């Protein structure tokens, strides 16, 4: 059970039960769909980008606790950042959940360290990264559905 508590920390359970920025916030001018065919999880991420700033970001869809919490945390962190900062966060987060070494993220991204436990569960990394890939695609303006497989 102690191992599982590393994965399912209280913060994750909280965000999965009460996801932040859930539901389509309007207005928005960017959106992308993400799909994890392994488990059937599907998210749509909406963003309002003005003058290079991600002024608002929201998501809807359904997924497991890991993917939902990660999506929720993503919206909190990305909101108010520049597009470049948001994309850089995506890269940092990807490193966090896939890297071999245990290197905590810097202070700005400290909130995401709760998801580092996913590293121990390779089959679940795609759950954690689904919303991030989708956010990245929304910012890139890619129309294709993002598939994490």
């Amino acid at each position, binding site marked *: 059970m102690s191992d*599982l508590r590393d994965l399912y920390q209280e913060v994750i*359970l909280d965000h999965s039960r009460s996801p932040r920025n859930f539901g389509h916030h309007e207005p928005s001018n960017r959106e992308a769909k993400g799909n994890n065919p392994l488990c*059937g999880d599907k998210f749509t991420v909406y963003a309002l980008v003005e003058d290079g700033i991600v002024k608002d970001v929201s998501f809807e869809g359904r*997924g*497991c*606790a890991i993917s939902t919490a990660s999506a929720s945390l993503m919206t909190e962190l990305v909101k108010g950042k520049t597009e470049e900062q948001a994309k850089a966060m995506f890269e940092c987060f990807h490193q966090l959940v896939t890297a071999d070494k245990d290197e905590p993220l810097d202070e700005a991204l400290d909130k995401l360290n709760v998801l580092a436990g996913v590293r121990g569960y390779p089959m679940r990394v795609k*759950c954690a990264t689904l919303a991030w890939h989708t956010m990245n695609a929304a910012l890139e303006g890619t129309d294709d559905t993002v598939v994490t497989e």
Partner: protein
Amino acid sequence: MPDTAPRPNDAARFDLAAVRDQFPILKQPSHGKPLAFLDSAASAQKPQIVIDAVSDTYARQYANVHRGVYELSERASAAYEAVRGKTKGLINAARDDEIVFTSGTTEGINLVAQSWGRANLGPGDEVLITEMEHHSNIVPWQMLRDEKGIVLKVVPFDADGALIMEEFEKLLGPRTKLVAVTQVSNALGTILPLDRIIPLAHDAGALVLVDGAQGIPHLPTDVRALGCDFYAFSGHKLYGPTGTGALYCRSDLLADLPPWMGGGDMILSVTFEKTEYAAPPHKFEAGTPNIAGTIGLGAAIDWFAALDHEGLAAHEADLLAYGTERLMEVPGVRLIGTAPDKAAVISFVLDYAHPHDVGTILDQQGVAVRTGHHCAQPVMDHFDVAATVRASFGAYSSRDDIDALVAALGEVRELFG
């Protein structure tokens, strides 16, 4: 549930300990716990005798088949071809040459679609499938629809996951050329009433393809008694190696089918002007086949045939009944698939945890279940779920496995409930 009620005498007679003892993987712990392997519907584990048959082939009698005149090739060819007879016996086909070796059910269905389908179906011709088909019995027909303009019709199932026979009869019409139907639903466990479906289809002038991937490990299968025209199954779900399987096709039908893959081993003679094809079944087996795997499939068929089948049926019925009863005790469980006639497969969801999270937590307790859409997304859509947790049983499964599952679900509840 009259058909799934435990018959304690038969079930007790089944020598479970002796069966389990033959599966080395079951002796290996998982996360420090005894392995409770509940994913046999995805792929069954292998008894030692199958593992030995594959490794002995490579160690003692391996060479390419149907080619060499030397002793090793003759022995490998004889061992490989002998599996045709074993497969014929398993499903009670009439002749050895009605058995085409394939890489599995998926290849068997694609063979029918690409060979029989392309030669015999045209615009407006209808193929009838069911709402509970595996993707492998949907997509090949959609590919043919896009190429040939055939019409794909889908027979719905009811709230329990039983096929609605009235709808089947309504959809069956003069344009129906093929009914392609599963024997047992992989996601729901439903056993389809083939004894009613096949005569109705034939009366309407349609042929019948049966997807036997999930049926053959659980049900006695006699293709002549069923009267089906095509029957496809996979070796790996029948305790045999991956990449093996067979397609049964009635010999009079098989004789007229065009080849679907060209290559070596399927020809009589080749010049740049013209090729003469080998007779069936070799006409459908281009290239070097899965020699060792198929010999392993032969060992699996022998092993399976030697089981006490009344005892096995009673054992699996007991697992289904016991598993259903224990799961119903778990708070927040909703069973997906409650048809009166079911094989030993239980799909469910919890109202407080996503199947994927459930799967990870169960795994930590040594319980291996399948979580996801089970390659049957239309079934998930029917029940408005993205995924389910599926516990599926094999000959080696035990009540202890079910107890481990239910105990591990307690851990899920502790975290998420």
